[in-house]
């Protein structure tokens, strides 16, 4: 019997979808899956984990765990590891997962396969696919020694339906020692509420948006589709938007179901960050723009004409079904 420990993540009071994807990934590799939920007032989310693939959910609540810190979460995770002796450890490839998983791997002197987009085979035979050069190429990796640790990229592994498991929920206490980093303040950035790395739909703007106000029609389209707004480096460098929105080889690498590129020329660094999206739409005045080479559908035209029309069209469609 192999056992997996999965770190579930709650953000702004609700579970992140990547937690269910991580559980589904863990099921491929291990026989038994234990989800770990850490935070303050997070117990309400445990049942969802227990019904979507976790055999057991361990909940650790402490007001000092309200915000993530590597020391706080690290101590809890390592202690639960000692109590459960897992063979496999799974994290989301999120800000939190990327920050914590290397610490755990270093402690265990183990390998860590970051940013897994697919798993081939099962159990001990499993191999892991991950992008390199921001998606310009891929590699297939296996563990040659030690425990199996990996992080899963959001939106790539199908989660399990509710009712897939009837796991148990247990509240446990872990003693916290000194925390060397303290979160003094958090300012939430308004990105329409949908996180860029997990968004199913991304509407991205390039230099063609011309100003920060130029992002307004893109945001409207994103809102109608329940998506997030992103940007090319060109738009960020021109100060039309914050660097947090940047998609590309520097910036975020995203794999949404639908990527709508508006006024983006399609530099190779940008394509690296988005060309593995399932469906790509390009809207650009220049019919020769490189972005059309990766687009499934293209409209040659001014984004300021096309985007509002598209927003109106989707509004109509989504209202009338």
């Amino acid at each position: 019997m192999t056992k997996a420990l999965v770190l579930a993540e709650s953000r702004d009071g609700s579970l992140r979808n990547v937690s269910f994807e991580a559980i589904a990934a863990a099921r491929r590799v291990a026989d038994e899956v234990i989800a770990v939920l850490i935070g303050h007032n997070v117990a309400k989310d445990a049942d969802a984990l227990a019904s979507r693939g976790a055999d057991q959910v361990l909940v650790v609540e402490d007001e000092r765990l309200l915000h993530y810190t590597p020391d706080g979460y690290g101590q809890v995770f390592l202690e639960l590891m000692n109590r459960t002796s897992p063979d496999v450890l799974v994290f989301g490839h999120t800000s939190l997962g990327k920050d914590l998983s290397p610490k755990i791997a270093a402690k265990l002197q183990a390998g860590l396969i970051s940013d897994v987009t697919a798993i081939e085979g099962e159990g001990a035979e499993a191999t892991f696919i991950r992008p390199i050069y921001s998606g310009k190429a891929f590699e297939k990796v296996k563990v040659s020694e030690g425990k199996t640790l990996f992080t899963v990229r959001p939106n790539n592994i199908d989660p399990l339906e509710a009712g897939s498991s009837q796991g148990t929920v247990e509240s446990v206490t872990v003693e916290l020692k000194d925390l060397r980093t303290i979160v003094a303040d958090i300012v939430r950035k308004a990105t329409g509420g949908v996180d860029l790395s997990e968004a199913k739909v991304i509407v991205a703007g390039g230099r063609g948006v011309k100003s920060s106000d130029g992002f307004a029609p893109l945001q409207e389209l994103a809102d109608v589709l329940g998506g997030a707004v992103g940007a090319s480096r060109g738009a960020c460098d021109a100060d039309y938007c914050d660097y947090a929105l940047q998609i590309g080889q520097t910036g975020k690498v995203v794999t949404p179901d639908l990527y709508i590129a508006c006024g983006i020329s399609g530099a190779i660094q940008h394509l690296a960050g988005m060309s593995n999206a399932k469906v790509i739409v390009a809207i650009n005045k220049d019919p020769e723009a490189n972005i059309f080479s990766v687009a499934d559908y293209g409209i040659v035209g001014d984004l300021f004409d096309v985007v509002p029309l598209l927003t109106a069209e989707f509004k109509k469609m989504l209202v009338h079904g």
Partner: protein
Amino acid sequence: MEIYVLLKRTFDTEEAIQLENGQIDEDGAEFIINPYDEYAVEEAIRVRDAQGGTVTVVTVGPEDADKELRTALAMGADQAVRISIEDDIEEADHFTISEVLAGYLKEQTVDLIIAGNVAVDGGSGQVAPRVAELLDIPYVTTITKLELDGTKAVVTRDAEGDTETIKTTLPLLVTAQQGLNEPRYPSLPGIMKAKKKPLEELELDDLELDEDELAPRLETIERFLPPNKAAGKILEGELNEQVAQLASLLRNEAKVV
């Protein structure tokens, strides 16, 4: 203030990736300092200029990486160290690299370590936090601002668009996010001076590290390129019709809306 920068030489982001017998074809490719590590070099220089001290740039890699180390020295770093492991270890993974770096850093007096938050080639972002853990010092990743007051540090970090303010203490490791600063270009006098700055080459023996204990934990079975996309459909007709057609295609053909 003893400041160390962890630096990696990477493919220029302009480069397309080609495979040759399952290996990344490096022939004729341009190499650069990993873009995120440039922010780290810049920040280290600024901290030193404000507080005094020494900036040492460290990399693990072959002789070719001396070029990127010289660039960092030309930007203003004081000295460089290249740890050469290719004679001892065939395919290093993050475990190996971080153990080697930590093996070196454990022997130094360290106040501040700055690295890029991720390398644009491997894309894992593991090495720096691993090194902090091995040295048993706190770390803060993806930072956009660093303020030091004695041994106290206030760090601003980007967490998926949210801005967190973190209070911590030195010795500390931080990793740079875009927006931390604007890296300078090496000046001509800087380039001339860099030629005379110390660049030390070390091997595992010098660090008293045993190659058998550094064997990689992961194995890459194969590398491959993503499938070429078939040419897309450029819509035609009146703009209204194109838009209606696109919405319908996204719903009924692609099924993503």
